[in-house]
């Protein structure tokens, strides 16, 4: 098993890592397979994600996909952000080893959960 250079880059220098003050939406998810945890925070303005940050306890793939998904959602309309799938995140990282694909599910679920948290808070169905 080996990670792509892009995965290692995001692992080494994760983008947008850390807690966000007063986030508009928070997604907290756990990976049932291995027990890893990811938290994704978003700021939303005019239905657009203007900022995203994350905190992740997990393997290299979990950290890299977390980092990548924050990059991918910034500037996206919420409805477009909801279309981002785990395989799109993995692809953007130059692929993941097959036994590590499940780690990218964490990123997709955290994003979905952050957006629905935002919508719940706003009372949007």
């Amino acid at each position, binding site marked *: 098993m080996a990670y792509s250079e892009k995965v290692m880059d995001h692992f080494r220098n994760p983008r947008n890592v850390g807690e966000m003050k007063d986030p508009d939406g928070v997604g907290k998810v756990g990976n049932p*397979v*291995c027990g890893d945890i990811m938290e994704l925070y978003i700021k939303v303005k005019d239905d657009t994600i203007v900022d995203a940050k994350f905190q992740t306890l997990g393997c290299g793939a979990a950290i890299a996909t977390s980092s990548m998904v924050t990059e991918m959602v910034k500037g996206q309309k919420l409805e477009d952000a909801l279309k981002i799938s785990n395989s799109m995140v993995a692809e953007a990282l130059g692929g993941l080893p097959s036994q590590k694909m499940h780690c990218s599910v964490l990123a997709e679920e955290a994003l979905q959960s952050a957006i629905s948290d935002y919508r719940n808070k706003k009372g949007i169905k």
Partner: protein
Amino acid sequence: MGRIYLDNNATTPVRPEVAEALGRMLKGCYGNPSTLYCIGQEAHVEMEHARDVMAGILGCNREEVIFTSGGTESDNIAVLGVARANRKKGNHIITTKIEHHAVLNPCKALEKEGWQVTYLPVDKYGMVNPEDVERSITPGTVLISIMHANNEVGTIQPIAETGKMARARRITFHTDAVQSFGKLSVNVNELGVDLLSASSHKIYGPKGVGLLYVRKGTKILPIMFGGHQERSLRPGTENVPGVVGFGKAAELMAAEGRSEEARLLKLRERLWEGIKANVPHVKLNGHPTARLAGTLNVIFEYVEGESIILSLDEHGICASSGSACTSDALEPSHVLAAMGVPPEKSHGALRMSFGRENTEEDVDKVLEALPKVVEKLRSFSPIYKDFLKQQTA
């Protein structure tokens, strides 16, 4: 940047003297040891010299040493071979929850064939209670298999105690000594074992070669069938260069005696003291004293093992982990689980295992890198953040 190899329980670098012996065999000694003409006999003599070395270390007769393709094969022959030979006598095996998969999986395979297997628990240090072994014996028990030293945490079992009991009860007793052979005393009579597995690549020998000691008179059947090599218990032309390399490696280990053990112990304690002093929220896994000199298994709370390994690799440091994320099965270490470590803690386990190439300088370099690595990963960790908030609340 020089590499610091701290994964000697996984495998070890081949020693120069062993590489030399291997080269000599590969280049100049190609004969089949089962043949009668000179080059066959040369190979035979070389191989039998290795067998004598092993017999010396084990305190047994040369005929009782069977060369195999490694620890896994030795364990499989021991477990499956004894079970098959004793089918009429009973259908129960006793082993432990912390065995290597090379013992656990043949036991599981036997369960599918109708065998009963008792997997004994261990205490928080990874120690099996010999009284539990005795209590688990049934009239149908035909084999007890307990590892000598554990590969993940290094805990050393009181094999001799169980050996005495097993002999009195006339039950065949096997020990997986893959991690202890060449390091601890493995005299088969002192240990009281009927079978013992060892592997070459854990003691600076080549990979793909090992041995099984089989006490004379032990009821055992082969699991592979073919020629008459290795008393037909392990048929097939022997890996002669491998066996010779293994012999050389074992000879060198025996010549060193316990001095290397003392050196490794010093390195290990230097590292552990340094970790304790520089990294908060750490916990030692394994027995405080009854433990392999070179093994240090530590839990770094609030971080995940694979991410530590990847980060250490960036600093040229090679180590291993008990985290679910590093195993293909995505299950946390069964050894730590048996020791009562909950999955969220074993997540942050790191195993550093020392060998003959390691120096004090290596330890100091690790102590420079490791605290930074853990601190960085903790800064990403949502549960560390929650923990800190709890502290200040």
